[in-house]
């Protein structure tokens, strides 16, 4: 048993969606409906209650000479998105039932038999991952294949990935691997390769790191995700002041009223 993580390397992803299929089949996740988005080959849009792995098809303006694209064609990259399993997880802190827990592998897991569908985790996730299932009422997201990890297997998506774009392993080992891979990519001329793992923000790093080329915002990876608990102090202070004002105001109003007499 060790603390584990995903490392999703977008430079190796071929957009086959095997991870999406493997995830849905292993976890018994329902279909997302058939609607054409018009956004490249991506008709799902984002991770959600019925999409725990989601392959992004990132079409960008052509960059001649880079990645082998012809000048008149768009550059095309893929990246498999997933729950980030934050070190400081907004959903976990917000859950009022204790349904959301941290597993022994470091992942964030929603116990489906406890969740009562209050929806507070949905508004507390800085990555927009958790979603309430419309038909079921409960919140769902990637389980980090807790059941598989329990018996020593790697998560379904990582196992199904044909190019090892999704790597799974011990977190510190993967951090080292990520650094090595980025160094290698840079040596090969891909100066814009970088690791996305927001350790310098209040989420304090994730158990799902990404290697992307260029600005992570192109992949909808936020530059400064924040765990909502950072706002607690400010909000409760305001609440205490409001309670004090209400109590003091009511006392003042009724005491002076009484003295005046009617």
């Amino acid at each position, binding site marked *: 048993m060790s603390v584990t993580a995903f490392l999703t390397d977008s430079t190796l992803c071929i957009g086959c969606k095997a991870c999406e299929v493997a995830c849905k089949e292993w976890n018994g996740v329902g279909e997302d409906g058939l*609607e054409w*988005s*018009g*956004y490249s080959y991506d008709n799902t*849009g*984002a991770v959600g209650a019925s999409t725990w792995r989601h392959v*992004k098809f*990132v079409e*960008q*303006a052509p960059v001649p000479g880079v990645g082998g694209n012809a000048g008149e064609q*768009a550059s095309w990259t893929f990246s498999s998105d997933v729950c980030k399993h934050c070190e400081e997880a*907004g959903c976990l802190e*917000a*859950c*009022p039932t*204790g349904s959301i827990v941290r597993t022994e592998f470091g992942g964030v897991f929603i116990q489906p038999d*406890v*969740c*009562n*569908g*209050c*929806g*507070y985790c949905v*508004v*507390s*996730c800085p990555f*927009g*991952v958790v*979603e*309430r299932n419309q038909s079921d*009422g*409960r919140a769902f997201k990637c389980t980090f294949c807790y059941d598989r990890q329990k018996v020593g297997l790697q998560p379904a998506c990582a196992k199904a990935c044909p190019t090892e774009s999704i790597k799974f392993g011990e977190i510190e080992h993967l951090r080292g691997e990520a650094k090595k891979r980025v160094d290698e990519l840079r040596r090969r001329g891909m100066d814009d390769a970088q690791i996305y793992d927001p350790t310098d923000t209040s989420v304090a790093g994730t158990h799902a790191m990404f290697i992307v080329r*260029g*600005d992570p*915002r*192109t992949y*909808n990876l*936020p*530059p*400064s*995700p924040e765990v*909502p*608990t950072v*706002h607690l102090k400010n*909000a409760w202070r*305001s*609440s205490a*002041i*409001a*309670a004090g004002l*209400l*109590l003091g*105001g*009511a*006392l003042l*109003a*009724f005491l*002076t*009223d009484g003295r005046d007499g*009617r």
Partner: protein
Amino acid sequence: MSDPIPIRPDNAESLRRERRLDDIRREAERHGQLQVVGARPAGAPFPQASPENGYYQIPLLKQPPWTWEIPLYFFVGGAAGASAVIGAIADYTGADRELVKHARWIAAAGSVISPALLISDLGRPERFLAMMRVFKIQSPMSVGVWTLLGFSTAAAAAAFAGFLNDRYGPSLPVRVLENAGQAASLAFGLPFSNYTGVLIGATAIPVWNKNAGDLPLHFGASGLGAAVGLLELMGHRRSRALQALGLGAALFEMWEGIRIETRSHAELDPLKHGASGWITRAGGMLSGPVPMALRAASLFSKKRSPNLRRWAAMSSIAGSLITRLAWVHAGHVSARDWKLPLTDNRRQP
């Protein structure tokens, strides 16, 4: 060439589909291209992902999954909490017995309606009791549920004891229940009247967390305005204490409105622009300047016109409800704003 197969739409569905073909043809004739999802005519700019546009401008954040019950719960809870505080203080300072009784009724009504609203919004209402497995100080939802439970029990006990007292005359056990219920409903009412501001303030929704330090005060004042308004509508339009509290709440709401309008942050846009902006303004006007003016007019009018206070009361109640709807609506608009999560808020060294 053979004749085209004659089309005889013989049911509503095929008729609709035929009309759709006509529509498509008309749009193509008029605009030279079709604006439907998935259709990108040759040569048209294809959607691009970029640091500025993010991933095809698809919003990162999920919208709040809550239904109409939640803004209504914010309104009811705020009014009930403030009302319990008013009732208890009125009792301790020896004010009018009727006022104390009515304030308790409002609190007791809120103590029944609030949990009903909260439970019916759950994805799995039958699992409400799962909320009571734990107490988590870092979860405003958990703290709020326990506050609600304490408040509901206390407010209902105080009102029930008051009823027993009126019906069967005073007795020691009833007095103990009444005093304990009242004291506890005061203690729980204070946080209950404004904690919903913490609840939405400490979230990932930009327009909410940007105002985390304002929302509890704002919601507290809104709840106080509604509680005063309800008591005035129940006949207490001569109480100087209620007039003073109503003026205080309206004054604070006016200040909050000015604060919203004068600060300029991209996160605050939903409070100022579009439908959510106008709902916010309507709620702000009805909570602040309108009752303020009516109460001032009443103060300086002959016989301190209770009629003007009736209008002020109705304005405050409507304003309080609309304010809660506005903030929830603004949260939805804010979550849909794909630009906000892409801005880098880290302090530059």
